[in-house]
């Protein structure tokens, strides 16, 4: 007992020592001059960004040229619109001519776009004029109170099977119950009719037109993040509103967009530095001294990572505090930061040069941003939205409680994936891999192989691949969710088959390439069976998906039903059939994994052929199961 304790203390000491060394060394590279330059640059950039956010960056400024006489009643509308450029009527180079009697439009796409921009300009000009009227009841003769109400479950008309989701509607209702508050806050914030004039109207149009750019501007403006009170945030989600018709803004996932940028952009800076630091160890055999020191590679990696992890946590806490999030927000975002670090670590262990590292980090950040952002769009469709931890943040901000199951569903795969990636990276944190130049795919195979010591390890690795399979499939669901169900179901099935077959076979290929097992039919059958078994056991953990109710979505069923998770609901099926269905996935995984293992034992091109065959078998099986259950 004490023995283990002293060992633990020794490990902790080593980790801390390396962490301190990492910090002091990093500080050493930053001389005073560069620090000052950097600080000045940050301040100037921040000032400019704030200025741009206040003044508004008009991406569409003077996009279309309009020929219009100075005394035309429409002149002011055109002149005040940012997208339209007022020109004299005589100018031949225009897309649109507005004369006393009619409007002539160039018969091109540009002309039609100019016309519709002109129509928008007239409409928002009218709004502004009306806002200045004395007689407001005549200027705004219609007042709308918009409520969002959840409907009871009836039939799986669209993509939704059950309506038991606890979030959305009910709470929007209570937010409205604090209702008068929301209403008055809306008076300043969202109501174009009374206070804001046409300004908000333009804003709404802007979001419709260029989502990403608008979000950029919003992300740059830190005032925009913490300025809206809770009522304001509810408004952003399309909470209940009241005002003139023009002030109705359809629900747009604006808040999750802003949150995604606020939380994830700083992480990019952290992983840049972290990746450099890891790759630096590998340049000119600098890390050799550490490797020969009496410290385990795990401790070295932990020590090197610790400062960056703490940095991520500190930044996350600061941002969470700024947007008003609590412990849950931090707990939801930090795992994402950990996954950022883990994949950067693996990338830096694989990359051959700084250039390659740059692309690896950019790929990581693009992928993870997509993963956290896309599902968060569907904030109102609970199971999909929960794929992204940002949804937890959004709910935390709205003051809702989050059940533990949902929290685990959202954060679990990310956390597990981060841990597995670190394990994989630590496996190649050794001399023969660190200081050699091999291409990234080969290094990846090396890393997989380093975790295989005997046949049993194959099963373990298959099971460990589950978080990645889960993440990949969830991302596929989230991306395909908007398409019609008829189209997405086959696509999802293909994606699932490809992802799962790769996960079951890549490490087997690595082991064969490294000549760890004899290239016989028998050993490929054994390895395939083990890989299938490991995968099957791991897959049972997708039962978590049920906790969060992803099964209630047709797509969720498609992706996960073939694994035999949701079959307990099949009431009409006999016990034997249930048992058969329960074990069928095991047979499937064992068969397909054996096919790929056999291919892998014959070399890489044979593996490719076998992989296609295995995917086809998997697909055929999935199609049968889905049609049988559906």
């Amino acid at each position, binding site marked *: 007992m004490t023995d283990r304790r002293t060992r633990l203390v020794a490990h902790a000491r080593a980790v801390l020592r390396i962490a301190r060394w990492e910090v002091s060394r990093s500080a050493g590279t930053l001389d005073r001059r560069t620090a000052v330059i950097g600080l000045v640059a940050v301040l100037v950039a921040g000032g400019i960004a704030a200025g741009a956010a206040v003044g508004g960056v008009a991406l569409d400024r003077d996009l279309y040229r309009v020929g219009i006489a100075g005394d035309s009643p429409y002149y002011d509308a055109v002149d005040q619109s940012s*997208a339209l450029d007022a020109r004299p009527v005589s100018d031949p180079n225009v897309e649109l001519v507005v004369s006393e009697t009619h409007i002539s439009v160039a018969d091109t796409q540009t002309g*039609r*776009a100019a016309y519709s921009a002109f129509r928008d300009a007239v409409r928002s000009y009218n709004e502004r*004029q009306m806002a200045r009227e004395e007689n407001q009841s005549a200027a705004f*003769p*219609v007042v709308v109170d918009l409520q969002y*109400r959840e409907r009871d479950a009836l039939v799986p008309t669209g993509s939704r099977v059950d309506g038991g989701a606890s979030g959305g509607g009910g709470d929007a209702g209570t937010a409205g119950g604090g209702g008068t508050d929301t209403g008055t806050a809306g008076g300043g914030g969202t109501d174009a009719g009374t206070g804001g004039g046409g300004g908000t109207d333009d804003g709404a149009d802007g979001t419709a037109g260029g989502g990403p750019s608008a979000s950029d501007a919003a992300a740059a403006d830190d005032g925009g993040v913490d300025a809206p009170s809770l009522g304001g945030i509810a408004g952003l989600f399309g909470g209940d509103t009241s005002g003139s018709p023009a002030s109705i803004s359809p629900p747009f996932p604006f808040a999750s967009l802003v949150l995604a940028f606020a939380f994830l952009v700083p992480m990019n800076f952290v992983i840049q530095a972290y990746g450099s630091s890891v790759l630096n160890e590998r340049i000119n055999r600098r890390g050799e001294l550490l490797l020969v020191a009496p410290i385990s590679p795990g401790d070295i990696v932990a020590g090197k990572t610790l400062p960056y992890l703490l940095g991520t946590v500190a930044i996350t806490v600061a941002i969470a505090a700024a947007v008003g999030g609590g412990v849950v927000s931090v707990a939801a975002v930090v795992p994402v930061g950990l996954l950022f670090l883990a994949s950067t670590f693996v990338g830096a262990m694989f990359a051959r040069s700084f250039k390659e590292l740059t*692309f690896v980090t950019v790929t990581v950040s693009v992928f993870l941003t997509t993963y956290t952002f896309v599902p968060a769009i569907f904030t109102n469709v609970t199971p999909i939205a929960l794929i992204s931890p940002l949804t937890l943040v959004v709910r935390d901000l709205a003051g809702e409680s989050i059940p533990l199951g949902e929290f685990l569903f959202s954060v679990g795969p990310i956390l597990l994936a981060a841990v597995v990636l670190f394990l994989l990276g630590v496996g190649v944190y050794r001399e023969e891999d660190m200081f050699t130049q091999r291409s990234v795919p080969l290094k990846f195979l090396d890393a997989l192989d380093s975790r295989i010591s005997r046949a049993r390890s194959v099963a373990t690795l298959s099971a460990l691949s589950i978080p990645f399979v889960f993440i990949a499939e969830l991302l596929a669901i989230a991306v395909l969710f908007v398409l019609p169900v008829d189209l997405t179901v086959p696509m999802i099935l293909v994606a699932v088959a490809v992802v799962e077959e790769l996960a079951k076979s890549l490490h087997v290929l690595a082991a064969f390439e490294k000549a760890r097992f004899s290239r016989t039919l028998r050993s490929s059958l054994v390895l395939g069976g083990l890989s299938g078994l490991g995968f099957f056991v791991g897959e049972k953990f997708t039962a978590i998906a049920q906790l969060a109710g992803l099964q209630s979505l047709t797509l969720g069923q498609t992706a996960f039903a073939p694994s035999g998770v949701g079959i307990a609901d099949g009431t009409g099926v006999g016990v034997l059939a249930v048992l058969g269905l329960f074990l069928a996935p095991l047979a499937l995984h064992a068969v397909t994994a054996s096919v790929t293992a056999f291919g892998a034992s014959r070399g890489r091109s044979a593996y490719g052929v076998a992989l296609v065959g295995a995917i086809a078998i998997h697909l055929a099986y999935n199609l049968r199961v889905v049609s049988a259950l559906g």
Partner: protein
Amino acid sequence: MGNPRFAIARRELGSLRKEKTIVLALAIQLFVAAFSSFLVVGLVSLYDPGAASYQVDVAVTGDEEAVEDLLRAVGTEDGLSGRPYASSSDALTAFQGREVDAVLEASTGEDGRIRVAAVAPDTGVETTAVVVRLRAALRELERTERAERSASLATDPLSLPPATESSPYFGFTYTVLVPLLLFLPVFISGSLVVDSLAEEVARGTLELLRVAPVSFAAVVDGKLLAAGGLAPVQAIAWMLLLQLNGTAIESVPWLFGMVAGLSAVVVTLGAAVAITSPDRRVAQLLYSIGVLLVFAGTSLLPLNPANTAARLALGTAGVGAKAAVAGLVFVGVVALVGLRILVDRVDPNELG
């Protein structure tokens, strides 16, 4: 053998090809563009009532007179059809029973205004589609009501020209997608230069220059040439691809000049940062901030790069935009000259 600058540029490109990073780079750009298009096409089709063939049934109830007006307004909107209901509880029952997608209950207030209580379903994506259509109908109602009350208004609202078909993605393609595809390669090129120079310093390979027949300036030039030349080529390739896809791109030579000028500025920035602070962590950080500075700074100008690119590609740019491109190219040349002066004053052996 020729000019050593070209030899170095060739070597740089060769290493990019060998590491297949250029493939990854192109894939990332494609992904970012596809992702933003996916988002916008997905969201815009929800926002634009004409874009999706989605029929919304609305239950209309309330005051008799107001109901009539409401039904008329609802009828003018594509994809929206109204049904009168006797009472609001009937309407809400129909709403819960999914016979209708939304409920509008109208009443006349004391001040003569029409008060509309709207109920929309809370189901995510569908909600947006419903609310957008409701808004259009209610604005139509507001317009007619306003016209009836025009006597008590100081100014008459301008009459709204009739709506026509126009692609809702049109503006997005030119104001977001085109600048994105033009400027992403520039970012990446600058980052490449930082990495490439920082790596030479970190590996100590610049020391070999003492015995090699190339100057440090030639090495820097070669790297600038490789990275800086790659950006305009990629950008123009994207533009041609857009054109193949049916998006007309005008004034391609001017766009080329613009990307070339911008790429000269950004690449020299990268090189200058890498030379003055050779540790990659610091250099990349400073470079990112510097690029942010360049883009944020220029976005405040009346002729900011994104807007100028959009207008050039649309073919609606005037003399001002072309002058801006010329100015940008000039700034790029000045930056290159400035970098040369800096390079001449630096001893490569003292770096790192």
